[in-house]
């Protein structure tokens, strides 16, 4: 009951946030730039072309009316046409969004898989060398510029060791010779659905470096949050009680203390996902990953505002939904959350 009310409240708040986000994107994309009509009309427009564009874009209407139109379009998934390519943005998104989501989900998983066990280990060996090494590693991971880390990983794993591909999402042998039919847009899943183990392995290999780049910062944060949460939890009475009940130390660490640290872990999922979505802008350029990040960075250079606005909207909504899910999960994991 408390839980249902809590979830409903979170959902209403999220809806308000999405409305606010839409408004902000509208302002930044349609009001701040000097003259959208000139951009829309193409290079070296004549006065007539600009006037025609003004009418097409409905730029002379009152602001509130324009916003209503914009919000309605966004709500129905009608993102308009790219100024530059004149293609339907919605169609482009359908191709690029899964690529970015695949990267984001994979790197989030990687961040948790690396960060949480290291945090538990550091807490269990507090003050000893695994703790010190881990703590320094996490600080370094947080301070590392994403784009620089990407280049180092490329240099080491692709150029020197040659064990992972330099860039791209699939090898030419797969994408050209025997392409995957697009079902979900997630290559890993599509490959499995088609029973193509070769494509699956190839897609996985291409995922590792960009995902690792995006995972380093959240993994560092995950480690630090897990460590401090675990240190606090390990001093609680119920841990002493569990010891007095004769439970084994690994069981206490992972079975009893870690579930209490799920709050921070879930926080990290949100953070990591957000980081992956935005870091994608940098990482996708470097790894030639055909996703939203590369799409938007090209749009930035071309001042293609409908594309920029659409990507910002879609990514932000992904992020808001993700945060909503995390809040709900947090309430499910720790029933006390819903009460406060």
């Amino acid at each position: 009951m408390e839980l249902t009310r809590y979830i409903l409240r979170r959902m209403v708040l999220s809806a308000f946030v999405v409305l606010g986000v839409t408004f902000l994107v509208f302002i930044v994309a349609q009001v701040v730039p000097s003259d959208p009509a000139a951009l829309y009309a193409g290079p070296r427009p004549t006065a007539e072309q600009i006037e025609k564009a003004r009418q097409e874009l409905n730029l002379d209407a009152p602001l509130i009316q324009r916003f209503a139109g914009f919000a309605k379009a966004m709500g129905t998934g009608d993102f308009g046409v790219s100024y530059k390519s004149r293609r339907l943005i919605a169609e482009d998104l359908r191709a690029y969004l899964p690529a970015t989501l695949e990267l984001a989900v994979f790197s989030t998983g990687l961040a948790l898989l690396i960060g949480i066990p290291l945090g538990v280990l550091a807490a269990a060996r507090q003050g000893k060398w695994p703790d010190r090494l881990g703590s320094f590693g996490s600080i370094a991971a947080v301070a590392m510029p994403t784009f620089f880390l990407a280049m180092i990983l490329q240099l080491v794993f692709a150029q020197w060791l040659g064990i992972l591909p330099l860039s791209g999402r699939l090898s030419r042998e797969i994408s050209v010779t025997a392409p995957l039919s697009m079902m979900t847009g997630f290559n890993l899943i599509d490959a499995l659905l088609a029973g193509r183990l070769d494509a699956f392995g190839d897609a996985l290999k291409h995922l590792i470096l960009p995902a690792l780049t995006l995972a380093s910062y959240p993994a560092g944060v995950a480690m630090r949050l897990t460590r401090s949460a675990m240190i606090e939890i390990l001093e609680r009475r119920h841990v002493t009680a569990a010891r007095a009940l004769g439970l084994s130390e690994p069981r206490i660490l992972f079975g009893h203390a870690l579930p209490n640290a799920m709050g921070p872990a879930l926080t990290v999922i949100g953070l990591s996902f957000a980081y992956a979505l935005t870091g994608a802008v940098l990482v996708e350029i470097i790894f030639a990953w055909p996703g939203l990040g590369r799409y938007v960075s090209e749009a930035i250079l071309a001042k293609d505002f409908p594309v920029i606005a659409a990507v910002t909207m879609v990514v932000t909504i992904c992020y808001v939904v993700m945060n909503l899910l995390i809040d709900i999960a947090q309430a499910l994991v720790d029933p006390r959350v819903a009460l406060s």
Partner: protein
Amino acid sequence: MTRLVQRLGWPGTIALVVILLLVLVAVLAPWVAPYPQQGVGVPNVAAKLSSPSAQYWLGTDHLGRDMLSRIIYGTRISLTNGVLIVAFSLLIGLPVGLAAGYFGGWIDEALMRGTDVFLAFPALLLAVLMAAALGPGFLNSIIAVSVTWWPWYARLARSEVLVLRNQPYVEAARLAGVSHGRIIIRHILPATGRPLTVQAALDVGPALLTAAALSFLGLGVLPPTADWGQMVDAGRKFFPARWWYSATPGLTIFIVALAFSVLGDALRERKGGTARASA
């Protein structure tokens, strides 16, 4: 000195020294840089893309300019970036947080829900959107990052004020009929200011990292002004054959961000702070 080491520990002290050195280098750039002209941007095509040598310690870029001088001049941009982003963000965030926390009620509700909208964006993405709308350039990129940064200070200031608001001396001032504005400026601002200033000083690191990401995307300072992020990007075309072009500015960004991070850690050790997202 020994007392400093005692308080910050060795890593923290080294980090502080690195940061102070950096400030010094930024101020004295024309005198420390081996080739001040090239640092400012004058090409030297004859020596283009030379590898590190006694003459050019960190090699040269595609226009033959000395990397070391470029990096030294880049210090100025990076530090002012970091400092201005934090300052602008404080300028917006502090009043919002103070008002929300002090007045409470619908003012608090309205201001904080507005803040939530800004926090709903993945930070770098909003900065990119802003920077794209404003166009590239030094001030524009700073404004773009500040827009994503201030909500944190608004939240921080608000939570500090919530504690202070019910302190007896604030209560007393209110009962004595002192005006709201005066109470805020006299009693609340000084007490919130301190923790916020410490936080802000430490945020210069992450702020500069975000600004570097923007300029890597071509949304920062325009060439020929030297800027680390933009240099890493320019060097990508020659990577890894001419590794020094991208690697030296990249490493510099890393070291500077690391120094701020380590110093922050040393200061927080006994306060128990929280981590935060940035690019």
